[in-house]
């Protein structure tokens, strides 16, 4: 019980860090990597909640397929987000 709750708390705090880094990062490839880290955190949260089916789907979809699609998109477009000039 203690271990489950501590795992839950740790991955919750870590998920804020990853989400914030993913959204404020200028380099889109790094942002994709942070986004994958966020999905691992969420998968841990889901597993701690007892939702094994979702955790399994989640790792495959969110850490695997989303990252691959985003890397393809970045390789076809631009890697860096433009600095706002206002």
């Amino acid at each position: 019980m203690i271990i489950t709750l501590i795992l839950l708390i740790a991955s919750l705090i870590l998920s804020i860090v990853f989400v914030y880094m993913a959204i404020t990062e200028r380099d889109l490839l790094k942002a994709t990597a942070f986004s994958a880290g966020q999905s691992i955190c969420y998968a841990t949260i889901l597993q701690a909640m007892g939702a094994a089916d979702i955790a399994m789907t989640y790792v495959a979809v969110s850490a695997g397929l989303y990252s691959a699609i985003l890397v393809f998109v970045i390789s076809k477009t631009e890697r860096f987000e433009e600095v706002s000039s206002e």
Partner: protein
Amino acid sequence: MKRVIVLVVLVLIAVVSSVITPLVISIEVPRYLKDLSRYYIINTIKDTASPEAVAAIVWDYRGLDTVYETLVLYLAIVGGLTIFMYTGELARKTPVGLTLLSRTATKIITVLISTVSAAIAFHGHLTPGGGFPGGSALAVATMLIIPVFSINTLLEKGVTSTKLVAIRGVSLTGLGLVALLPVIRGLEIVTNQRFYPGYLDGFILSGSISLYNLLEFLAVASGFTAVALYLSIPEEYYKGGDNA
């Protein structure tokens, strides 16, 4: 530096508010299931012959929802592939991939991922998993092959987008047929236990749930593999360069 300060403030807000809130107002954490969920868990074996309550809800109790959501899946991917339609021939270059070490490692890992994804999908009515996670895991294996071995290797092995779209169409048609077949005996569509056998010669089939999982596995895996193939075609081909 400014980013770190904002981040620390956000984490502090989350932690401090969750320390203070239980002290100020009394919070009752939920300890019992709702009656509807309890019904699903207790009756899943009797109603659907599937020991997995989530698969039973996805494909039996709420089966009609899932069948229509599969239609959304079909239309979304078809929409994307229509934008990226490429009818010309890809130039037959010699495949350029990464080094021998990463190729060998990728070969081993790809076989492992494919096996695991098949196990996830075909045991979906017995253990956690099912057609959706299994198909996504198989698509991850193909997405691993494309950067390491280059797309030409995949095309030479006969994995073309036309074939993938065909597999997808066939399996989704099969899914619709499995859902519609009970109508010929006057039952509702997406009927499970009153039409399909739950057990066959000692094997647990859970009626139509295993069929749905198999077809959904094929549909999801081929759909996302087709997406990966189209995304990995180099941009020069679309611009009508000398290769196209």
